[in-house]
């Protein structure tokens, strides 16, 4: 009689023949399903399947012959995921990314929806912490779900990574689904769209692909900047976009920058991205960071006092995921050591993380951030050109270096190929401009937040 334990013993046996690296890379991912005279090994994808077939199948056979002598055993190697129950007839579900494989046993065709992701039910408007930095994006998203396809179409949410764009997108999808359980919502990453399109072309299923995406009630695409420089993908998306807008179906897109600033995207597509509403999500300010930490702690059932949340939020300033990482670390250490999370505990536990964070504020990083913000090249910051479109960002960058780092004026000057008097002039000019020009003040404050201050 075969049992599941046999596979575990088989792996132990093979420890004598294979390195742990080989075992864990190729054999441990296999999921066994035993039938009376047959062992089905499910590989997560074709590559693992092929590798095991070529290099390890005979070793597995040999090990099983030793461990279960006299039992005739056929080994089948398939791509798929074995369901939990080791039933006599294994239930098989295809992983999303292997949908291009030949259907198993001829039983199942690759679903058209196999490439789309699932909406995460945890990402709702209720679990979204609002602050000044994201309130406009949240309001626009809530407005969209009241009448999908009617106003703000497309809704274009942009901003740096880890600030809540994906959360809002899921919240939109979840709320639409809640209002209309029959709504056909496609949520996917831009690269998943590309993969699906390539697969459809390869298998001659373009019509099915077009029909699928042009007939959804809402299309939510994350990281649309991934379409840059992929003309064929943009072309297909352009037609889908038009069809959905014409049919008053909602489109929500996220991107790491404002539509007009995406390099490598066709102008007519860029222009369409701005037809609805483009809203920015900025790095959260201190109060929002504290609120986010407290909410995340609540969700994870971690006891976190306000003073600890304040301490962490003051020190970790760039994005929400960093805050989550710090909370996970504190929670793990508190559990392992059986101690409460105090400010001192947080200080000691996050010491390495906070030190690394402090090191991030360098002249190079400031230059990179400022250049990205103004959409100019880093080399423009050190060039001799004195046009206002370059001189102003250069002055802002120099002033930020003076304010946020310990470098002297001559050191900053050297980093910008200028002398120290130019740096001094830039610092004074920026102080004056921040008083007089609200736009400069806003730019400066935002850049400080992006660099982790404020």
């Amino acid at each position, binding site marked *: 009689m075969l049992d599941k334990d046999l596979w575990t013993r088989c792996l132990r046996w093979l420890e004598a023949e294979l390195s742990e690296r080989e075992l*864990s890379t190729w054999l441990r991912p296999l999921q066994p399903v035993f039938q009376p005279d047959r062992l089905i090994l499910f590989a997560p994808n074709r*590559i693992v399947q092929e590798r095991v077939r070529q290099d390890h199948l005979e070793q597995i056979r040999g090990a099983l012959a030793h461990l279960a002598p006299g039992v005739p055993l056929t080994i089948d190697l398939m791509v798929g995921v074995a369901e939990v129950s080791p039933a006599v007839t294994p239930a098989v579900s295809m992983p999303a990314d292997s949908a291009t494989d030949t259907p198993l046993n001829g039983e199942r065709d690759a679903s058209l929806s196999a490439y789309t992701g699932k909406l995460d039910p945890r990402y709702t408007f209720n679990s979204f912490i609002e602050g000044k930095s994201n309130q406009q994006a949240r309001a626009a998203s809530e407005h969209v779900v009241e009448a999908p396809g009617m106003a703000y179409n497309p809704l274009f949410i942009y901003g740096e990574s880890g600030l809540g764009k994906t959360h809002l997108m899921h919240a939109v999808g979840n709320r639409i689904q809640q209002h209309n359980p029959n709504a056909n919502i496609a949520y996917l990453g831009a690269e998943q769209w590309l993969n699906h399109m390539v697969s459809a072309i390869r298998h001659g299923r373009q019509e099915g692909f077009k029909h699928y995406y042009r007939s959804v009630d809402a299309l939510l695409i994350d990281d649309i900047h991934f379409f840059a420089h992929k003309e064929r993908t943009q072309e297909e998306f352009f037609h889908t976009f038009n069809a959905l807008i014409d049919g008053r179906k909602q489109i929500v897109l996220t991107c790491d920058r404002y539509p007009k600033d995406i390099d490598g995207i066709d102008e007519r597509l860029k222009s369409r991205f701005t037809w609805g509403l483009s809203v920015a999500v900025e790095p959260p300010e201190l109060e929002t960071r504290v609120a986010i930490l407290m909410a995340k702690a609540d969700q994870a059932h971690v006891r976190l006092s306000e003073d600890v949340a304040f301490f962490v939020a003051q020190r970790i300033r760039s*994005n929400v995921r960093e805050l989550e990482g710090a909370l996970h670390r504190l929670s793990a250490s508190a559990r392992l050591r059986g101690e409460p999370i105090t400010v001192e505990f947080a200080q000691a536990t996050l010491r390495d993380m906070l030190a690394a964070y402090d090191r991030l504020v360098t002249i190079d990083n400031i230059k990179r951030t400022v250049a990205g913000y103004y959409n100019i090249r880093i080399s423009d910051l050190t060039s001799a050109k004195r046009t206002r479109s370059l001189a102003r960002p250069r002055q802002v960058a120099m002033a930020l270096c003076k304010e946020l780092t310990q470098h002297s004026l001559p050191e900053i000057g050297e980093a910008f190929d200028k002398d120290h008097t130019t740096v001094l002039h830039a610092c004074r000019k920026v102080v004056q401009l921040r008083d007089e020009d609200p736009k400069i003040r806003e730019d400066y404050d935002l850049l400080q937040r992006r660099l982790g201050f404020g």
Partner: protein
Amino acid sequence: MRGDQLSLAVHLPQPCDLESFVAAPDLQAIAQLRANESAYLHGPAGVGKTHLLLAACRLHGGRYLPLSSLLGEPAEILAGLAIDQPLAVDELEGAPEQPEFWMALLRMLDQRGFGNGVTWVASRNAPDALHRLPADLRTRLARLPRFHVPALDELQQFQLLIEGAERRGLALPDDVTRWWLRHLPRDAGSLLAGLERIDRAALKARRRLTLPFVQAVLMPPAAAPQDEPQDD
């Protein structure tokens, strides 16, 4: 009647486990891995991050993905892992420089986060210092609780050699240990690889671990020191 004891040429591989990991006693990464909880391990090369990941895979039946070994593989290699199976991603800095690969890794992390899948990642650097990776991926990695794995101090290096040798049934004389720690790389990876080499060589040659023998195995003849002090 007693016969002569036969020396069998059987090399027993050392199991990769968390118990045999020599580290500072308060290294919380070990407890985190033992508890089957997600973790991001960072520290210099040779401190044993790979050992920890492999040991965790062995303990919990996880899948191990050494990214630097996957150069040239399509992004599909990341696909399809069951959510209830832990995933260990090693050598993050060696990830293939392909946007498709990074995006696949990013989606996989999202999917695992969504399904509460356990994910372990190891790299020489903390997530925010991985500038080669796209920001989207860096920030997702930053969600994992991170643990620094420091280099071994002198006492721990000594302990690793002695205990590692004992587990293999080898006796390392003091002069060998002293010479080794003075003249050869002392990171955990190098020390363990050296033990593996002398274990195999001693078995093959049926020799005790004398200083000349170990020197001959671990150092090319031209590089071996001529006048090795006997004690210091």
